């Protein structure tokens, strides 16, 4: 892939899957901002800038996949909790199915590439030995 650095590829991939990952976390239970960010950060390499999660949350809300509401608790400061909507759950289910097929297809192609690369190295090594 000429003209696209390895870092840019990873960034694009990460950006593409971050939304479904947020939906997946919210599907288990509502979370407030910092909590959601921390949980995403636990997934190694998924989140490079915590601040970018908030624009993403706002876009998911604008798309109707997430709602937010303020919760006032006597013991903690007021927090804005994010909750997945039914539309968000449907979107997540659809993504999971697509993702499985997608990763299987990509894994298959990458495996073929890896095999051919290994064969070429073997042939080259054989030629060098002659």
């Amino acid at each position, binding site marked *: 892939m000429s003209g696209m650095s390895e870092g840019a590829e990873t960034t*694009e991939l990460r*950006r593409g899957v971050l939304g479904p990952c947020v939906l997946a976390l919210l599907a288990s239970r509502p979370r*407030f*901002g*910092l909590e959601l*960010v921390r949980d995403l*950060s636990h997934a190694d390499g998924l989140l*490079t*800038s*915590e*601040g*970018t999660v*908030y*624009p*993403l*949350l*706002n876009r998911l809300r604008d798309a109707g996949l997430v709602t937010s509401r303020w919760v006032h608790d006597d013991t903690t*400061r007021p*927090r*804005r909790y994010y909750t997945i909507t039914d539309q968000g759950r449907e979107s997540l289910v659809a993504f999971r199915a697509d993702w499985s097929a997608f990763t299987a297809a990509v894994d298959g192609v990458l495996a073929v590439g890896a095999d051919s690369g290994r064969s070429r190295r073997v042939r080259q090594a054989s030629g060098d030995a002659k």
Partner: protein
Amino acid sequence: MISALDHPLVAGYLRELDDALAGLPAADAAELSEQLRAHLLEALPPDADEQTVTAVLAALGPASLVAAAAAGPASGPDRGEARRDPPLRRTVTSARRLPATVWLSFAAVVIAIGLPSGALIFWHAQPSLEFYTSTAWWSQVDGAHVVETRAAGATQETAPIRPGQIQGFVVTIYNPSDMTQFITGNANPISPGAPVAAQISVSTTGAVQEIGTPHAVTYRAGGGVIPPHSYRWVRVLWRSDRCYLEDGGSQGVTGLLLRVRVGWITRTETIELPAEFAITSTAATTHADAAYCRNRQPTP
């Protein structure tokens, strides 16, 4: 009560953030700013040390990156431009974020520059004085000896030179502007009958008691005012020089060059005359003063 947001590093980050978000719709920018402030309040204890603050801010990412993420996905061809406000609204949004002191300073500069500039433009834009209906030779002697000639659509009124005598003419001048114009003098260095500037006087009233007899009004020597949308008699006089014109020579004026003050500016205005006022010499005047003029050579 001190909060984590008061930490200098946090405050600096939030300022950068607000600047970076200036291009977003105001509601989006406000919401994102509030979310990140809440994040920082949750992540940082009020007494957080510098190392902790630095780590939290680093994890949050540069303010510009957050703003770029809010503007839209960078992978798209428009890089989020569709989500951004139109340029005019972005400018207005940015302007609203400026402190009041900046606006006051800006207003002071605008007033300091704008008012004088506006006044200058206004004064310069005022229309010039113009000729208004009547002319007459000042002296009845000249009036009686004037020869009027017409050629190629132009009219010339020629009077014989009367060496050493006061000669001249009067015209009515109209001020079409909305401001009083003050005639301060003559901008023409010579007059038809002498190599000196003619004296300019302005009537104190606009009364025309009898057309062609301007002597009925009072003049103010050295200039005078013409109120807006009014007219005044302007008198142009000189003492004719007997050595100025050779035998058969003549000189005239087709326009008055006047120095006129409008507001605080003084400009030169040219008033086109309906006829050329000219002075001519005759052999008699030339011969009579030949000896005198020889002594005065060279004549300018």
